[in-house]
């Protein structure tokens, strides 16, 4: 223990040039065009004449140091000692010499890193924390992602989809996973049970009351001690009260289920960005492999793959064929729960005589 505590160097976001592959650094802002010679490989050409091949491989994201070192070994041996990671936790190796591509791919494949995730593939699922680390999860994250990526392996290493498919997961209704072509999210179906013994100690009551989107929580005295009570008819089981007040136990091994959403899109390509829409719910939260959720995802992907036009993202495809057809083709039931009744729901209703049979 040093007598004088070390004060941090507030260096902020570090300079990227120091860690950048030299070919990228040299051609920063100079790239001219690219193509994909095969799934998992990008070929970029610079206006300077330089070229670079990128090999993209899947990882488990939650990596042990041995795995990272293995990736470093490969980078050192086959790829000039530089890598980068994508927003979806894929790793990318850049090489300036086309001949290095094949051995690099072989080395990665040998070590069990799938090559793919580019172009019209299903890329790595956006990954959150779940039971491994978060304090509020209704399910796991790493296990769900691993299970699904096992199932979607072929779709990762091939580019057979109409367009890129971005899948997200979220292990509670807070949804750190973001919007997705397909989103696999926890959905609670029962109001929180309140552990009244703990409220007084653990809970900042006014802020919980304020957090509830439907004003279903009010302060109450229970067994002579300050606690909370929930109007169960109002409660929409969103779980927002749980993070600020852990005694509001929303997670339930049985009643925290999984819901699946379709058509989220962040890019501005063609259509404007759009939010994903509920398509299926009531799916059991079934570790270690979540087969029921996987089945729904695969069904949706299969129909999309078969029916969509080239370049149509999932949501654009559904817009074209219409939601009635989506439910018909996927065999998913359409229920009253699909009809929005939250604020602004009006904008989601069919205020026209446009109808499909």
């Amino acid at each position, binding site marked *: 223990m040093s007598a004088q505590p070390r004060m941090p160097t507030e260096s902020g976001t570090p300079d990227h040039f120091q860690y950048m592959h030299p070919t990228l650094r040299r051609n920063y802002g100079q790239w001219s065009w690219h193509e994909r010679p095969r799934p998992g490989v990008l070929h970029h050409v610079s206006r300077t004449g330089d070229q670079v091949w990128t090999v993209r491989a899947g990882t488990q994201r939650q990596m042990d140091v041995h795995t990272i070192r293995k990736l470093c070994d490969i980078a050192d041996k086959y790829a000039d000692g530089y890598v980068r990671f994508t927003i979806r936790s894929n790793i990318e190796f850049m090489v300036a010499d086309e001949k290095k591509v094949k051995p690099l791919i072989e080395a990665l494949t040998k070590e069990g890193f799938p090559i793919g995730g580019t172009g019209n593939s299903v890329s790595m699922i956006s990954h959150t924390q779940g039971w491994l680390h978060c304090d509020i999860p209704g399910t796991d994250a790493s296990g769900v992602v691993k299970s699904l990526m096992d199932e979607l392996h072929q779709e990762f290493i091939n580019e057979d989809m109409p367009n890129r498919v971005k899948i997200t997961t979220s292990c509670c209704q807070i949804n750190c996973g973001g919007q997705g072509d397909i989103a696999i999210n926890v959905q609670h179906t029962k109001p929180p049970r309140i552990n009244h013994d703990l409220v007084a100690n653990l809970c900042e009551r006014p802020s919980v009351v304020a957090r509830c989107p439907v004003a279903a929580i009010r302060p109450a005295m229970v067994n002579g001690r300050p606690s909370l009570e929930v109007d169960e008819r109002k409660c929409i089981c969103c779980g927002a009260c749980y993070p600020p007040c852990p005694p509001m136990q929303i997670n339930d091994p049985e009643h925290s289920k999984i819901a699946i959403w379709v058509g989220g899109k962040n890019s501005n390509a063609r259509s404007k960005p759009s939010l994903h829409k*509920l398509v299926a719910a009531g799916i059991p939260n079934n570790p270690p492999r979540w087969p029921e959720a996987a089945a729904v995802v695969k069904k949706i992907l299969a129909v999309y793959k078969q029916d969509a036009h080239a370049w149509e993202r999932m949501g654009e495809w559904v817009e074209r*064929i219409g939601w009635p057809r989506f439910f018909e083709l996927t065999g998913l039931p359409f229920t009253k729960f699909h009809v929005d009744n939250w604020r602004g729901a009006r904008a989601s209703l069919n205020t026209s005589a446009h109808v499909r049979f």
Partner: protein
Amino acid sequence: MSKKMHATPMLDQLESGPWPSFITGIKRLAKDNDMAVDLLGQLEHSYETRKGYWKGGTASVIGYGGGVIPRFSEVAEKFPESKEFHTIRIMPAPAMHYDTATLRKFCDIWEKFGSGLIALHGQTGDVMLQGCTTENIQPAFDEFNKLGFDMGGAGPSVRTGMSCVGHARCEHSCYDEGRAHREVLNSFIDDIHRPALPYKFKFKFSGCGNDCMNSVQRSDMAVIGTWRDDIQVDQAEVKNFVKAKGREYVIDNVTTRCPTQCLKLKADDTLEIDNRNCVRCMHCINVMTKALSPGKDRGVTILAGGKRTLKIGDLLGTMIVPFMKLETDEDFGKLVALSRNLMEFWVENGLEHERCGEMIERIGLNNLIEGLGMEVDPNMVRHPRTNPYVRLDGWDDEIERLKQVKAG
């Protein structure tokens, strides 16, 4: 009668120009109608001061609570002859057909009892007999009533209905609008005449998606013709059309304008239609009136909740029935039953002065559909919900119930 005309320098300016002038008309009346003289005087006064001078009040006929719009002048001391200037609303026949004999009788009655000013028609479709003294309301109405015409709606009541010319003269018409109009409206006669609803309720009937009655936005329940099978195509006429207009014209004006891109002009100048993806928008049929027409399996789509601004902003109606047949007596019976159900649900659940559409906004469409004992359908939404703010504990039971419903 020959009251002296007021000076109306501003109104006089409305006598020039190519469009028929209501001022010239009222002046014509003023020749032998003092009420018209003072009406012009008051109107000129409004033009000068940029303010209105009518106030409401009460006036009606025996037996009815509504249908008369009472107007009393706030400047009666200046314009005494038009101090009472009420309007009587009369329901015309569907699509506003008339023989001249009837119209002439209207004129005669109104010349006798009223100002002689008739609006054909109000925006809700009434014949508006404008300018009646309190005293003359009853005898005037009696005459119209004897002629076979009844009072229209006003106040918190079912309002006069409107239907398009449709079956009578339009090839697009997908159901008998006149019949639907009469069967529905005439099943609410009590609610038309005796205002006792939370607020007004309007029905409009359009024979196809062109919606010539503006039903989507201007009625609480809109009945719009549509079809379930394939668009009828006369390929010979398609070829004629292509020959006459050219392929480019057809591509630019027909195929590329289809909202769901389900039309294809083939190399042999015939048209291919992906009917499963057609949303029955009417566009292609509108352009190629001779070659295309709605399918044979016709019926109606029903929307609920259209209205104007107050108090949450304009609302377009929202689909509550994607399709129902409307051919047999039984079908029409079902339409009447549905309209009664909707009305009852609204009467029970609507707040005071809350239109049907505002209620839907407040309670959620799903609750309306459930309350009507109907099933939701993905056609009712542009897209499913984008938020997880929904109680899903009933999911399994609901899926089970839907399975049973489907099974039989």
